């Protein structure tokens, strides 16, 4: 790779980006306080919040204009994802839009040939997909499997849409997700939506988008749990001084701020490349995910630690962030698989004969 290539390094957000960001920040602040997050824990899903979110256009924005969507960029979507992470919103937005975008790219979203998925675009019906990179056999955990109307999985070189007469049962999980064991063999209907190399490549793209948006959500998650811990530390005294003035507390908080800044910019840069030059830096989306998956757990644990006995309480906001920091990225399987994917992409690029070393 030519590290000296003359490219712009402009991470700034446009006015439109800022408007979008503030609209969603405000939405979740108003409609998704921590009590709402807690109340949704038994099912992992707040239907009322989801309907409000869909009414705001959060699902249709993510779809191409050819499918009646607004054709938002992935950069736009990372801004929404970050607010979902910040508020721990119990909505399956990331999984749903990744699955819906996949169906759209396969021409299987709500046209004459696929009328069954007509209500997916606006979120009235929910789409889920198997977020693992390494394709599973038999029953597997689907992050939003217990609430989905359509579940997309790979089977060999086929992309298959499954429906169940009775939705698979939700299983308790650390990410407080509406997760379920899904056995494709037990589905009531199985529709092959696409087949072949091109279809599998599109599935891979959906996996990359899921990782990108999950990384963005983890950025918001880390920033919020850091902010809560910092506020606590400013007001908690030991031997007459705020504990925030002790380097044993302030330096880990500074490290979280660095994680947020680096992870956020990497996520946005990865999104920009997928939007504009998808073949140039495809490793950046899984890179952002690998980085944030590792750092989110460390940061969320430290944020709990800073708040001591109050942080570990099951009622503390910090503990709500702690469990999701681990459970959300893990829903896509071992994050180490994404690290291996990063290595494979960059190694393939280095050994490709087209690499022009100027």
């Amino acid at each position, binding site marked *: 790779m030519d590290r000296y290539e003359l490219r712009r390094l402009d991470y700034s957000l446009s006015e439109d980006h800022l408007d979008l960001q503030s609209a969603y920040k405000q939405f979740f602040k108003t409609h998704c306080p921590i009590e709402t997050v807690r109340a949704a824990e038994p099912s992992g899903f707040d239907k009322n919040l989801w309907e409000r979110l869909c009414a705001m256009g959060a699902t249709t924005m993510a779809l191409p204009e050819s499918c009646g969507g607004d054709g938002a960029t992935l950069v736009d979507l990372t801004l929404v994802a970050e607010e979902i992470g910040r508020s721990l919103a119990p909505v399956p937005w990331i999984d749903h839009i990744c699955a819906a975008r996949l169906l759209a790219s396969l021409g299987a979203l709500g046209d004459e040939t696929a009328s069954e998925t007509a209500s997916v675009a606006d979120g009235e019906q929910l789409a889920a997909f198997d977020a693992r990179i390494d394709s599973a056999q038999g029953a597997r955990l689907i992050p939003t499997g217990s609430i989905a109307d359509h579940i997309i999985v790979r089977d060999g070189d086929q992309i298959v849409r499954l429906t169940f007469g009775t939705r698979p049962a939700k299983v308790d999980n650390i990410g407080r997700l509406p997760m379920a064991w899904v056995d494709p063999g037990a589905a009531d209907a199985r529709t092959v939506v696409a087949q072949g190399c091109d279809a599998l490549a599109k599935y891979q793209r959906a996996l990359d988008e899921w990782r990108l948006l999950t990384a963005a959500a983890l950025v918001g998650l880390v920033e919020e749990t850091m902010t809560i811990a910092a506020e606590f530390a400013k007001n908690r005294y030991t031997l007459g001084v*705020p504990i925030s003035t002790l380097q044993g507390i302030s330096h880990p908080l500074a490290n979280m701020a660095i994680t947020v800044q680096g992870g956020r910019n990497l996520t946005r840069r990865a999104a920009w490349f997928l939007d504009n030059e998808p073949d140039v830096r495809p490793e950046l989306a899984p890179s952002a995910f690998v980085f944030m998956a590792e750092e989110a757990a460390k940061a969320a644990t430290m944020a709990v630690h800073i708040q001591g006995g109050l942080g570990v309480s099951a009622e503390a906001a910090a503990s709500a962030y702690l469990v999701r920091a681990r459970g959300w990225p893990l829903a896509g399987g071992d994050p180490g698989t994404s690290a291996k994917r990063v290595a494979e992409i960059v190694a393939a690029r280095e050994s490709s004969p087209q690499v022009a070393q100027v």
Partner: protein
Amino acid sequence: MDFSRVELSDDDEAFRDEARNFLKAQVTEEVGRRDRETGDNFDEGVHLAFGAAGYLALEWKSESDGGFSRVRRRIWEQEKRRAHVPWVTWGTTAMVARSVAKFGSAELQNEVLPRVFSGEVRLCLGYTEPEGGSDIATCKTRAVRDGGSWLINGSKMFTTGAHNCQYVFLITNTAPDSPKHKSLTMFLVPLNSPGIEIQGLRTVDGDRTNIVYYSDVRVDDKYRLGEVNAGWTVLREPLNTEHGAVAAAADGLQDTSIMMHQAGSMATAVDKAVARVTQPDPSGRRLLDDQSVAYRLGRSFARMEAALSAPSIYGRVAIAQTMRDISPDLMDILGAASALPFGTDGAADDGGAEHVYRFAPLVGIYGGTLEVFRNMIGQYTLGLGKPNYSAPVKKVS
């Protein structure tokens, strides 16, 4: 948001080609060999050639003052890195020259600046003291007025490049009984003054820096920069520059954070490791076929890209920390031959990763330690308050 290739006009493209050819001709293998041997990170021949070709003035001056346009500045910066131009002494020179232009008398500016642009004059930093560390306000080097001149006594550590420079930008204490921020006076001390002794010090990464001793060094008052006891005013700007607390550029034609030279050595090492793991051995097996190699390489790559993305002072901490974090893994995956340094027969990656490992401790102390910058992030961006330290103890000597 924009990460696109910069579209160049025909003129700018011609400039890039000319700069690239010029740099290629100047920075020969011999320059590289000498640089590794001396650890100077400076080459006088190259530097004088830059001066003669007008590049030093173009780089230093603002566009309105006849310097590079934004895009040419960025081209020049990137092409210098591509050519591996030794960079450290021009960096300090350019920075100190700004203070001379701002605080020096007309006479001093005339003495120094034209020769800075020709390359004949280089400037270094006399900040840190043997007992001072990162807190440069605890300055023991004394300057005492003596008629129209000053007598300077003391010593400074890490005056990198002093043996290739003509002046040192020196922090002195002129009011030992005043509060520390009102006790400092800055001088631009000619390094050929009697009483100055420069002692070389090699560092673990292979670079050379210096300890400089000042014994009854007489300096004319014209070499003073700024008011007496107002050294802090003079220092604030260069310190801010060195700290890297710089706003992002709207046109994206700027590094995301400071320390990008250092980060470049990490990126080079990672890219070399990537290239190495794809090479098949005689039986056709590649290191990458080992899943634990693929995992560690991918994780290292990801962490590096995150560090390269972090802006401002977050970025400088992220870069230094990530160099420390990933270089051991990069060495491990390349095996025992990663222990062999540059130029050694059979070195796995031409000493890339092992150099990052030795370089990383220095990157975490340049212009302030990682702790200084974590303090700054905590205090100024998270609002955590000024760090608390235990009460001072009387030093027992």
